[in-house]
């Protein structure tokens, strides 16, 4: 009998995914960049040299000058402070969208995956929702409900839900064919319990990966909504609306797009890279080949 290795945690696959040393150098850099961005935005209140809203229209669109390391915008506000603080809402919108869409998608996907009767109806609705181009849906929702942070989050979340539902449903459909689920049925485990105890954990890994992609794309979508005039108010800076406001001055003062754009792109790039790395780690098909 071969020796049995010591016990490990129940979160096996997740921990394996999060164990950075297994990642390539690209992912390590990505994790580092993301950490720096998150720390900077978290501490923005203390780091930022100026209030992001204090304006001085008479000193507008200035290049880097004393006290304004990245210059000022068209209201004479400090770009550096705005980019720092702007990260907060961008990240909040991204995280909120990811969490909400994953949770709602999880519940709907579970129901669709397990109850054949509900499946057809739910999936047709999801098909319909997916058929509506998400940007158009989002602009319409924001334009019609007013561009508050809440409606921006809702507008970005709703189009993401069908994708999560499909993912969860696929995982559930695959998992319910697994022998251990059939064994659980044979052991007299009730359906809700099977759902929660056996199937939900299966969706965890793909949902974490999907969540990172949603997080990244939500931050990007927020920027595009702002660009199209359906974003959050300029009084609450986000990377998106800083760029949207600054796009008018792209050729005069490219810093207005450059710096928030750089922060946004670096952030999304890192999240996407980490998501990819997590997927490679969690996807058994790819793992098989790596060995």
């Amino acid at each position, binding site marked *: 009998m071969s020796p049995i290795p010591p016990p490990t945690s129940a979160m096996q696959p997740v921990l394996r995914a999060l164990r950075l040393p297994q990642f390539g150098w690209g992912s390590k850099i990505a994790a580092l960049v993301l950490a720096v961005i998150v720390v900077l935005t978290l501490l923005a209140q203390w780091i930022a040299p100026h209030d992001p809203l204090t304006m001085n229209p008479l000193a507008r669109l200035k290049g880097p000058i004393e006290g304004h390391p990245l210059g000022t915008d068209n209201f004479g506000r400090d770009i550096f402070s705005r980019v720092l603080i702007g990260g907060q809402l961008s990240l909040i919108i991204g995280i909120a969208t990811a969490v909400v869409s994953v949770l709602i998608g999880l519940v709907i996907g579970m129901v669709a995956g397990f109850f054949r009767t509900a499946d057809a109806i739910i999936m047709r609705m999801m098909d319909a929702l997916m*058929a509506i181009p998400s940007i158009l849906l989002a602009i*319409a929702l924001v334009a019609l409900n007013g561009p508050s942070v809440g409606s921006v989050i809702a507008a970005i979340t709703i189009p993401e839900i069908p994708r999560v539902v499909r993912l969860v449903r696929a995982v559930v459909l695959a998992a319910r064919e697994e022998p251990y689920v059939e064994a659980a049925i044979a052991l007299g485990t009730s359906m809700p319990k099977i759902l929660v105890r056996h199937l939900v954990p299966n969706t965890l890994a793909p949902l974490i990966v999907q969540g990172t992609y949603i997080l990244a794309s939500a931050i990007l979508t927020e920027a595009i909504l702002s660009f199209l005039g359906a974003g959050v108010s300029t009084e609450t800076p986000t990377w998106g609306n800083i760029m949207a406001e600054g796009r008018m001055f792209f050729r005069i003062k490219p810093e207005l797009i450059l710096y928030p754009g750089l922060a946004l792109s670096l952030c999304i790039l890192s999240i996407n890279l980490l998501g*990819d790395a997590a997927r490679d780690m969690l996807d058994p098909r790819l793992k098989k080949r790596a060995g």
Partner: protein
Amino acid sequence: MLGYILRRILAVIPVMLLVAVFVFLLLRLTPGDPAAIIAGDMATPAQLERIREAMGLNQPLHIQFVTWLGRLMQGDLGVSLISNTPVSAMIADRMGPTFAIAILTILMSVAMAVPMGVLAAWKHRSGADYAVMTFSVLGFSVPVFVIGYLFILIFSLKLGWFPVQGYTPVGSGLGAFLSNAFLPALTLSTIYIALIARMTRANMLEVLGEDYIRTARAKGAPERTVLFRHALKNAAVPILTVIGSGFALLIGGVVVTETVFNIPGIGRLTVDAILARDYPVIQAMILLTSFLYVLVNLLIDLSYSFFDPRIRY
């Protein structure tokens, strides 16, 4: 096969019906009174009421829906509230540019992305792989309007290779069309290339691990033959699928690029309509883009059997 196509087409009906319900509810249950917009600056409450009456906005919601759907069935998309022009004419007018640029984008993207993905999968974990992956992640990470501005700055203003804006129909000559359409298509392509290259890479990686690839190598087939003859065709179906599902992304991108490059397409028409609360136009546009999405995906589904003989209907 015919039966399958028929069934698939029938399956489109409930989806489109649901889209119609979504669209209708979306517009009717949210604030914004089309009557107030039509009435203009100087309207009195009595005038508003008259306009509401005339537009049928006073009737119960389900009656309004049925009326609207009935007209829709007869091909009547209504008349723009703002400009008083028939919506179908407006759309027909503006579809050409969007359509042409979308096709160009897809062609360019596939032409670039598939070889990139194949290379990345073949040279898995090599410098080329990382380069392709980094590029394709970048494609997802930079907002499309930033890319558009950069391209204009570099290719139009600095290098003077392309005009900065505008649109020339294909009919005026391919060269003229391309000189206008190339940059917007390239801008739109970035995200599409990213998507397709990733998908190609992932599927090629999977296919390259299949037994029949080993068989091909055991036959002494050179790598080129293994990649393009044996592997790519097997990876084609998921690549096609992503082209189809990426179509929604394309529409989103179109909205932005049409603004940046000033192209008279349906993307801008839609955004303008949404911002102006031009309900008939919004409804028609969302229905139309959804229908196109469903149609494109249906066509793609049907084309699977061309690549994979196992798929027969």
